[in-house]
C-alpha cells in the first residue's frame, strides 16, 4: 500500500483507457501522454495495461507502506526519495517507510509514476482510469491508501533509459477532420502558419487555444468525437478534445491530431505555444 501524504495539484490513476462504453457516452479516459506512461511501465516490465499515476504540474508526496520498485517518466518534476534526488527514466527501489516527493517543474506538464505490478485501485467498467462518476474519485486525496503489490527483488533487463526529448516538441501533426471543408482560405492560412497559445482552460477533457481563426455559421448534427478532435466553435475558437473529452459533439471537427501529437499536447501548459502541420491521407 502507498499512502498519500499530499495529493499534489491534480494526480489521478490512469491506464490505457476504458474501451467499449463510448456508445453509452463514457469517455475513453486513460493516460494523456500514453507514450511516457508506457515507458514507465516497460522499465518495470509491467503489462501495458497496468495502471500508473498521472501527476499534473506539481507532484504528490507518497509514503510506501510496502516495498516496491518504481519509475518516473514524462515531465521532469525533480523527484526525491527521502529527500535525496532520484533520476527519472530509471528503476528505483523503495522500502517500507520511504517517502517519494516531487519538487520544481522543470519541463513538460504531466509525469507518470509506475510501481511494479501497477496501482491496484478499483476497476470500474473494465478500467482503473479515474473519471467521476464512473470511479468514486476524480483525483487522489490526502490520506488515501492506494493498494500496490509487494516486491523486494527485481532485476530489470533495462534499469534506465535516456529521457526522450520528443515531448518538448511544439509541432502537432494533424489530419483533415470530418468538417475540414468548412475552413476558408484565410482560416487555413492562420491554422497552418500561425502559432497557437494554450489557454488557461486546459484539462483532461479539452485544451482550448487562445487565438481565434474567424467565426463560422456551419450547423451539423451531433456526431462522434475522439481524443485529439479539434472543434471549431461558432466564434472561431479552437477546442482540442483530450482523453476525458465527451464522446459526441455538435461543433465542426475541422482537424484531428495524430496519436503521438495528443501525447505532445498533453505535456503543454497554459501559455505554451503549438503549431499545426498537415499530414494528408
Amino acid at each position, binding site marked *: 500500500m502507498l499512502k498519500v501524504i499530499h495529493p499534489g495539484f491534480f494526480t489521478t490513476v490512469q491506464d490505457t483507457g476504458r474501451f467499449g462504453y463510448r456508445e453509452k457516452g463514457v469517455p475513453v479516459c486513460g493516460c494523456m501522454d500514453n507514450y511516457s506512461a508506457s515507458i514507465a511501465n516497460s522499465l518495470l516490465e509491467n503489462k501495458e495495461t497496468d495502471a500508473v499515476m498521472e501527476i499534473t504540474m506539481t507532484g504528490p508526496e507518497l509514503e510506501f507502506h510496502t516495498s516496491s520498485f518504481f519509475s518516473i517518466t514524462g515531465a521532469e518534476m525533480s523527484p526525491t526519495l527521502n529527500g535525496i534526488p532520484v533520476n527519472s527514466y530509471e528503476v528505483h527501489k523503495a522500502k517500507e517507510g520511504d517517502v517519494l516527493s516531487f519538487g520544481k517543474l522543470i519541463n513538460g506538464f504531466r509525469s507518470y509514476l509506475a510501481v511494479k505490478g501497477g496501482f491496484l485501485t478499483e476497476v*470500474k467498467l473494465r478500467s482503473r482510469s479515474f473519471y467521476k462518476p464512473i470511479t468514486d474519485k476524480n483525483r487522489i486525496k490526502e490520506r488515501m491508501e492506494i493498494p500496490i503489490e509487494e516486491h523486494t527483488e527485481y532485476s530489470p533487463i533495462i534499469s534506465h533509459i535516456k529521457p526522450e526529448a520528443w515531448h518538448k516538441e511544439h509541432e502537432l501533426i494533424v489530419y483533415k477532420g470530418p468538417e475540414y471543408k468548412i475552413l476558408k482560405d484565410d482560416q487555413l492560412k492562420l491554422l497552418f502558419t500561425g502559432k497557437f497559445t494554450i489557454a488557461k482552460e486546459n484539462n483532461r477533457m479539452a485544451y482550448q487555444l487562445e487565438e481565434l481563426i474567424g467565426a463560422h455559421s456551419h450547423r451539423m448534427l451531433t*456526431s*462522434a468525437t475522439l481524443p485529439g478532435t479539434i472543434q471549431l466553435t461558432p466564434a472561431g475558437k479552437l477546442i482540442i478534445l483530450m482523453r476525458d473529452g465527451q464522446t459526441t459533439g455538435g461543433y465542426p471537427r475541422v482537424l484531428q491530431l495524430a496519436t503521438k501529437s495528443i501525447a505532445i499536447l498533453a505535456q503543454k501548459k497554459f501559455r505554451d505555444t503549438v503549431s499545426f502541420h498537415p499530414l494528408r491521407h
Partner: protein
Amino acid sequence: MSSYPILIRPFGEDAILIEWPNEVSEAILYDILDFAESFKLVFKDSNKWELIPAYNSLTLINRENKIDFSKTKFLLQECFKNRKAGGHPQRYLWKLPVCYDLEFGIDLEEVSTTLGKSIEDIIKAHTHHIYTVYGMGFLPGFMYLGGLPKELETARKSVPRLRVFKGSVGLAGKQTGIYPQDSPGGWNIIGNCPISLFNVNLENPCFVNVGDQIQFYAITRAEYDLHRIETEVGIYNLDKIKIDA
C-alpha cells in the same frame, strides 16, 4: 436493401466515419443500426472496434489504432451492400416516470410564461409525445432525444447553471432529455426522473440503446420518493414495451 448513399472517410489514425444523408430521420437511424449489426456479424475482429451511432453517422473506432483504410472501406461497402434487412436488435419503448412538481421543475413557471402555455398543458404535451434516442453522449447515459413537439421548443437559459441535479428533465431548442448525473447545464428544467439511467456496477451500465424510444409519464411527489428508493435498492421494475420492426 436500402439505397441510401453513404460516405466512408478516415477519422484520424484509428477511426472511420460513415455518414448517411444529413437529416434527422428514424428511417436513416434504423438503417445505421441495421448496418452496425451486420458489421458485428460479418467482421471477425468486430470486438476490436467500438461503434458510435449518432443521428446520421456511425463512427467505428479501432482499439489497436491500426487501420488499413482502403481495405476496410472496401469491406464496409461490401457489408453495406450485402446485408439482410431487419438485422437490428430488438428495440424498446421505455416508459419513464417524471415528477413535474415545482420543487423539481424549477423553470416550469418561466417556461410557462415564455411559451404562453399553462404548466398543465406543458406536462400534457411533454408526456403525450414519444421520443426517439438518436444518440448518447455529452455525459455517460445522456440521451439525445428527437421528436419534441414544436409547441415545447424553448431557448436555452442565457446563463447556464453550475449545477443541475441528477435526474433533471430539461427542454432546450428542439431537444428534451434527462441529466444522468449532476452536471453544469443550460437547459430549462421542468421535472425530475427518479430512475438511474446509468449504473457503473452493471456490465451494461445503461439499459437504453440508441434507436430505442422514450415516453415520460407524470408521477406525484410520493411516487417519486418510492421509485427513488426502489431504484436505489435495485428493485424498480422498468416499464418497457417491445417495438415491432
